[in-house]
């Protein structure tokens, strides 16, 4: 166990350069913003002296390295500025909205994995069959789908035509009561509070957006599972396992799938990049009150502090997820553990 712990520590250290790069880039993006923030904060009727004063107060009269240090200091205290549209500190806005985005993304990811891995395995065990062709069509079509468009199509079919889904307006309809916040995930909170009706309402709202996001990420996962399963199934150790008379399911799951999953776990990193980006579009389509729609509102209003906070949060989350994948990889693959 200490070996695994050491491995995790090493991965944590190796993620530091990425985090540093992300912070630097976000700082550069902040300073490249069009317009003069001092003039903006001072208001339209301000005199040049007042603008200068605001500039001094904001620290914008100092050199760039000094400003960068000040920025680091603010970040260390968790400060990300104040949103002009909501009037709230950006940190609080983002913290309040983050669970909505996470709930959606995780639900989509679970859905995608649950569909993609069986599909890829089925396609690999029967190459050339209809299920293989279907997997190929799904994986080519899946990467071509504009995620905002599939979302709208699903809304049209399941809300307008069939009436099965609720209106695409946020996480809960107006009549359901919000459960007391524990984790911020409505599904978990409503279960903790024992409110079955709220749970059902929240789940109903979640299905379509999660499906939209999930469809988008099935493609790369299924394609990778199929390719890596095909490779493993033709290898010697699987032939030996078969020749020893092990049952079909033991060979497939214990021998083949476990080894085939390694490259799939690596693709997860790319899938996260897609998911987090597509998340923004899906949130807009379904009026989902997450950090993506928060950033869009701020962008449209030229309110830049929330946008910077959003980019930083997303990037840090992405680095964190990749780190998680790395650690997971080390746990699944004993070879990595021994090398560490």
């Amino acid at each position, binding site marked *: 166990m200490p070996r695994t712990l050491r491995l995790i520590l090493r991965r944590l250290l190796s993620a530091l350069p990425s985090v540093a790069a992300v912070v630097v880039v976000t700082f550069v*993006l902040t300073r490249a913003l*069009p317009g003069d923030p001092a003039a903006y904060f001072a208001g339209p009727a301000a005199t040049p002296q007042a603008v200068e004063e605001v500039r001094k107060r904001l620290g914008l009269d100092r050199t760039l390295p000094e400003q960068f240090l000040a920025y680091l200091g603010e970040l260390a205290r968790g400060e990300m500025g104040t949103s002009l549209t909501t009037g709230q500190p950006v940190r609080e806005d983002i913290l309040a909205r983050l669970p909505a985005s996470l709930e959606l993304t995780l639900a989509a990811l679970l859905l995608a994995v649950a569909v993609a891995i069986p599909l890829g395995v089925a396609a690999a065990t029967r190459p050339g069959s209809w299920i293989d062709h279907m997997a190929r069509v799904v994986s080519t079509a899946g990467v071509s789908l504009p*995620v905002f468009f599939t979302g709208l199509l699903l809304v049209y079919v399941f809300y307008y035509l069939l009436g099965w889904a609720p209106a695409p307006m946020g996480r809960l309809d107006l009549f359901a009561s919000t459960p007391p916040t524990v984790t911020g995930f409505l599904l978990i909170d409503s279960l903790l509070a024992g409110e079955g009706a709220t749970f059902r309402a929240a789940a109903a709202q979640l299905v379509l957006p999660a499906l939209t996001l999930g469809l988008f990420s099935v493609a790369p996962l299924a394609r990778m599972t199929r390719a890596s399963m095909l490779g493993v199934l033709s290898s010697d150790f699987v032939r030996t396992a078969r020749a020893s008379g092990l049952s079909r399911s033991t060979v497939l799951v214990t021998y083949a799938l476990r080894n085939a999953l390694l490259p799939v776990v690596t693709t997860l990193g790319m899938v996260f990049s897609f998911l987090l*980006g597509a998340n923004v579009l899906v949130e807009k389509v379904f009026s989902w009150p997450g950090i993506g729609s928060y950033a869009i509102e701020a962008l449209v209003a030229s309110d830049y502090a929330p946008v910077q906070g959003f*980019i930083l949060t997303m*990037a840090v989350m992405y680095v964190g997820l990749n780190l998680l994948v790395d650690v997971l990889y080390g746990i699944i693959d004993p070879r990595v553990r021994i090398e560490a």
Partner: protein
Amino acid sequence: MTATLRHIRYVLAENPVTGVAFGGFLLILLLALFGPLLAPYDPLASDTAAALQPPSWAHWFGTDHLGRDILSRVMVATRLDVQISLSAVALSFACGSVAGVCAGWFGGPVERILSRLVDTIMAFPLFVLAMGVVAALGNTVGNIVVATAIINFPFYVRMARAETNARREAGFIEAARLGGNGDARILGFHLFPNILPPMMVQVSLNMGYAILNAAGLSFIGLGVRPPTPEWGIMVAEGASYIVSGEWWVALFPGTVLMLAVFCFNLLGDGLRDIIDPRRRT
């Protein structure tokens, strides 16, 4: 040459989908070149009397909330969408292949700096980075192109570096060096043409991604301004009518966008089959 042609014919016969993708590609090019001439109506002319009409013989794709003909708007939009993605891909191809070839050839500090840069770009979720770049540089179509080029840049660098690395010690490079060519000449006239085929596959696959990315950015209100016809913004305009049942406003531009991306992806797969039979899926 005949062998290549035979191989292309073989691939097309084996996978007729590639032929269809080529056809679709030509159609998109035609629309981009002649769309404004072929469009039956003025894409900006509004006619509030005929607002939100379903598809009919007069308006094949129906009309939007201002009574503008959706077919004409979709046709005219092709040029802008192809322009954006083509210039973005060209930009990242040019910068990325030069950087990648240099990294693979010179190694050392050049490679270290470039791979740091690439890793930094890849540390962001790509669409989010594109949003940030557009927000920082200003909300214009030109900056959409720059943002799309930046997020595609890493793929070209990595590919060019790997391909260059694989050929660094190859016989034809040694021969060129013995012939007295300098680094620049070897890279430009001997190595680069050699890695061009796999790079072209990447270009085709990237075109689809670039169109998706640009349409996504304009869907959330970045870059292209409302009266201009563009696929992403047209889907955004149609989004509010989906819940009241006016499906045609968003469906047609969205479908054309999807088909265009699909076409570029299939074309990329087909090109890969033609260029490198071993990498077939």
